[in-house]
């Protein structure tokens, strides 16, 4: 599956990773719901780390839509909330 990390690019990650990634994603979701900044940073870091570790960077000139998209490593909790609410963050 193709996973994009915003501001970093796309990775081709083996489908076998999906359970582990979902697990890390739900930790991220609870951190966002509870508004816990430290837990958010930690969960986001782990999720992004796993994608970078297990994925291969996709060729720069590939034109493939991603199956999954992850926040920018530097994104704040508030920014990710806005992104999820589609708060006009994505231009165009």
């Amino acid at each position, binding site marked *: 599956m193709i996973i994009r990390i915003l501001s970093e690019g796309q990775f081709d990650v083996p489908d076998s990773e999906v359970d582990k990634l979902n697990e890390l994603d739900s930790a991220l979701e609870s951190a966002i719901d509870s508004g816990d900044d430290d837990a958010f940073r930690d969960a986001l870091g782990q999720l992004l780390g796993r994608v970078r570790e297990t994925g291969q960077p996709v060729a720069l000139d590939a034109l493939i839509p991603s199956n999954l*998209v992850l926040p920018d490593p530097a994104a704040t909790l508030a920014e990710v909330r806005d992104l999820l609410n589609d708060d006009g963050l994505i231009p165009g």
Partner: protein
Amino acid sequence: MSSTIMQRIALIFRSKANTALDAAEDPRETLDYSYVKQQEMLQKVRRGLADVATSRKRLELQMQQLEQASTKLEGQAQQALGAGREDLAREALTRRAGLEQQMSDLRAQHANLQAEEDKLTTASQRLQAKVEAFRTRKESIKATYTAAEAQNKINEAFSGISEEMGDVGMAIERAEDKTAQMQARAGAVDELIASGALNDPLSGGKDDITRELEQVSSGNEIEMELARMKGQLTGGSGAPAQIEGQSAQKEGQA
């Protein structure tokens, strides 16, 4: 099962692309229109990159000016101590501590901007490669076009580039925000440099510590001059010669 965060964000990007695709009557028009937008985005990311670089250079110049001012204050503190003016030395060192604080702020901002610049550089390279791939794909799709056959190819190419455009667009906006914040703070530092709290090397103006130190040393010279004159009046030859000797020695050192 409810969607994960990563599915939800992907969906938001995809629905943006679909809305644009649905709006076009002839999908081939979408290709051309999108290509124009891509060119604009490339221009935008390059301008953004230039803005960040300009801000970074301004910051570097300010850091240099603060560094010079800090070195100067340290010298003044030593000079003031030598003249027995501990109060003045304390004032100079206090100001220097304030500058050190400013400089550590600027260093953090500098690292921040440098990171944005690096991100935009790779974003620009990525977009450039994808735009080029899109152009090739667009021409081949148009050449072999039959509506049903090409639709899928168009959708994929368009969604792929649209996602990249959204990503790069967000990166530019973030970089612009940071640059704007930085410029507001840089303005404050420029004011500090211009305010005379620091000596502006261009204006040739003197700060108050320098003026006081000059007064201290000209006060000493006046005392010495007075002593010499007094010596001449009393007709003694020992004392004035001694003072002149000291004065010559001082000039020799300087």
